[in-house]
């Protein structure tokens, strides 16, 4: 593949960052600045989504309604999920992709820099629309993030706001995904072959395909909601020949790939961190790539495991149960390869590694409960209970969020040029890890004991575990304040970071100085640099 033989960045002021808010941030086409914008945005959204979660936990602290009207409670649940998924996790991954992919493949920038700016700047407007629903007549959306009709069609003025917000988020994700694909397929330095790419790049490539295939389907689904509500179509109305369950099929055809969109880049991150702190390259690199691809493929044929109770024909139930169980195999391959990377390694426990290790254990716990949910007859008992809530917070919070934390702690010195406060970072880790388990582990018990999800109030026998869970929640929430503080500190000073940062880090990004130059690889790295920077698989 012919690439930039002579390097890149065809303009005069190479390392000169533009000045002023407008020039630096609003009109920027620089992958690092856009990456920073994404990450800051994501952090803000994490705190907003987290405050909604705190309100949920506050109301559920004990039985009886103390603070929130049931409709407002449902709005909190709905907005919490939408903000966390589309505002916190996905933009965080895109931000990391922006920062790291060009550096890791030896490119000067993303392939389509103007579009890159566009895909970020759509987001604040999308979330303005979404969050404004909290203030409109009739209240915010309260039908759950899954937006099932006919219930969601009872939403007031918030409905079109939510739907158009989702359209915008979808557009942003699609543009971002196109950019990632084009960058990876077209901007690799000569010699950076596909099977030399770091796993973070690989997982993001596959994630981008998932995004392009899944997000338009969500757009279609919510468009149908819009026309059902405002223009009298009958997609989800049995009287007109439609079916409310049809929405669920379309939604989950998006929704299941979506949950892997939120975990594959996390897999990539963990696959970067564990080798570094095990002192040796990733075990079974090829298998890891194939496993990721298999997970992505399977993710499109398992969607109805969210719908075991809707009354599908037996054959469909069987099919979706079995296909879902299959996902455990490639995921297992990944877990085993990570574990074996440590085997006969030289394992050290810097903050990024702590998050990655916690990920390994707790994501697996979430995976196990996922596997239990996949067993259709047993899912009749689990479905729509806190057991499901526990499952997906283990994969999302201790999975995706923990990996993102790990990524930030891993690459922060590269971004800022400073080391951060290690002991504060460890405090953040340990507090988070302890509290997150106090927060979510008891929810398994609640679910099994019969507590439904999406309820503002509950029978008194669920009191004790709910209290435990809420206390864990508050603890986890408060611990998160350490995170922006630590980043702020690191951005404004601290010991100078070397270009390698970690003794044993492998990868092209570590061949660049810290902080990385404004345009990453103005000259494409030479073959020798690549061989040096890439682990020999």
């Amino acid at each position, binding site marked *: 593949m012919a690439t930039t033989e002579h390097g890149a960045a065809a303009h005069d002021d190479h390392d000169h960052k533009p000045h002023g808010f407008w020039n630096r941030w609003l009109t920027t086409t620089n992958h690092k600045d856009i990456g920073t914008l994404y990450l800051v945005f994501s952090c803000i959204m994490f705190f907003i989504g987290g405050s909604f979660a705190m309100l949920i936990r506050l109301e559920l602290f004990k039985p009886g309604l103390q603070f929130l009207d049931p409709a407002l409670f449902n709005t909190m649940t709905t907005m919490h999920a939408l903000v966390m998924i589309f505002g916190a996790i996905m933009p965080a991954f895109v931000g990391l992709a922006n920062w790291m992919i060009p550096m890791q493949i030896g490119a000067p920038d993303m392939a389509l820099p103007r579009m890159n700016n566009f895909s970020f700047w759509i987001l604040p407007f999308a979330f303005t629309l979404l969050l404004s629903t909290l203030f409109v007549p009739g209240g915010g959306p309260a039908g759950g993030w899954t937006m099932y009709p006919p219930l969601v069609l009872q939403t007031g003025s918030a409905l079109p706001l939510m739907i158009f917000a989702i359209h915008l988020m979808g557009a942003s994700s699609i543009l971002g995904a196109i950019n990632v694909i084009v960058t990876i397929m077209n901007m690799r330095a000569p010699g950076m072959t596909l099977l030399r790419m770091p796993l973070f790049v690989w997982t993001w490539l596959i994630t981008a395909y998932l995004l392009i295939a899944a997000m338009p389907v969500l757009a279609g689904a919510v468009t149908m909601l819009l026309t059902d509500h405002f223009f009298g179509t009958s997609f989800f109305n049995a*009287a007109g020949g439609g079916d409310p369950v049809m929405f669920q099929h379309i939604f989950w055809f998006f929704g299941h790939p979506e949950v892997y969109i939120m975990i594959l880049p996390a897999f990539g991150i963990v696959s970067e961190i564990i080798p570094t702190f095990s002192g040796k390259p990733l075990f079974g690199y090829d298998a890891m790539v194939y496993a990721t691809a298999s997970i992505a493929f399977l993710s499109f044929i398992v969607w109805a495991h969210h719908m075991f*109770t809707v009354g599908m024909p037996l054959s469909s*139930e069987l099919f979706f149960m079995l296909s879902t169980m299959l996902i455990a195999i490639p995921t297992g391959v990944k877990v085993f390869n990570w574990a074996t990377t440590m085997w006969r390694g030289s394992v050290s426990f810097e903050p990024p590694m702590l998050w990655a290790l916690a990920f390994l254990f707790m994501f697996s716990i979430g995976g196990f409960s996922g596997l239990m949910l996949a*067993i259709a007859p047993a899912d009749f008992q689990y479905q729509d209970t806190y057991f499901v809530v526990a499952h997906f917070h283990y994969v999302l919070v201790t999975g995706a969020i923990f990996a993102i934390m790990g990524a930030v702690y891993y690459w922060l010195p590269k971004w800022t040029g400073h080391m951060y406060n290690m002991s504060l970072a460890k405090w953040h880790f340990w507090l988070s890890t302890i509290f997150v388990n106090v927060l979510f582990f008891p929810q398994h018990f609640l679910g099994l004991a019969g507590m439904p999800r999406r309820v503002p109030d509950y029978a008194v026998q669920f009191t004790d575990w709910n*209290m435990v869970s809420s206390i864990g929640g508050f603890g986890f929430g408060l611990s998160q304040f350490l995170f922006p503080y630590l980043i702020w500190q690191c951005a404004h000073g601290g010991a100078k970071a070397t270009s390698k940062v970690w003794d044993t880090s492998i990868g092209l990004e570590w061949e660049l100085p810290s902080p990385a130059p404004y345009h990453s690889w103005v000259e494409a790295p030479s073959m020798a640099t690549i061989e040096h920077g890439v682990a020999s698989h």
Partner: protein
Amino acid sequence: MTIKTPRVSTTALAALAAGVMSLAAPSAQAAWTLNMTPGISAMSREIYSLHMLMFWWCVGIAIVVFGFMIFSMVHFRKSKGAVADQHFLHSNRIEIIWTLVPVLILISMAVPAARVLVQTEDPVATELSIRVTGYQWKWGYEYLDTGVTILSTLSRDSNRARQLGSGIDPNSVPNYLLSVDHPLVVPAGVKVRVLITAQDVIHSWWVPALAIKKDAIPGFINEAWFDIDADKTGTYRGQCAELCGRDHGFMPIVLEVKSKQDFDLWLKKQQDALKQPAVTPSETTTTTTTTSQATTPATHVSAG
């Protein structure tokens, strides 16, 4: 009466939270429940053992996998002077093994799961059919071919206590949020079929003791069946399990399981009552009335 679940006594985890416990007012109905109910029918016990089978497999796998990880972390830690083996990077044999072993494990899970699944979908030879209709926010029941119907809403004292800032301590309300004015009465030892649908939005009819959860979908009928052990008479409770609007949390299901004889007597009495001329208005809202509304499908057209 509470949901019938075994109270697995507190373990280490509960101890962790013991301090928290002291903050809580001692609740009348015991807490710290850890596990699912085995239920009151052969089917629910099948599902329970499926759940336990899965659980123990997961525990087993976790012990092996986590054990391996912990061992590697501890044994190969840098602080102990471990030196990384730069040549231990891949092995096709290992990859094949850890692909095949999970396949076998999954098969051993899938076989019983599929068997139970097939059973749950087999509502032949039922003796009694009950039509269940979800409304925002109550349940309607109709004993097919008898004209007997029941409308079941949250009991009045729960309803009063659950209002925002009511000041009533939920612990003082018997079966808070789990009791209704008119429970569904069913016979034990009889194979009963429930035909589940809804009038407005999707609900889900869930009784943990029966291990039945089926969505109630407007415009469609879903079927489920149960056959309660003859000796398991008593009261069992469940809840709506699909978000259905603001009062989703407040439309419980209460099942009164009677012996076959008692049930027949009860049904007969209800039918006789139907034959009486004009029920007084105050009673129409209560138990036994034939509602024509329950038999004609709603032509739900979305608002707007």
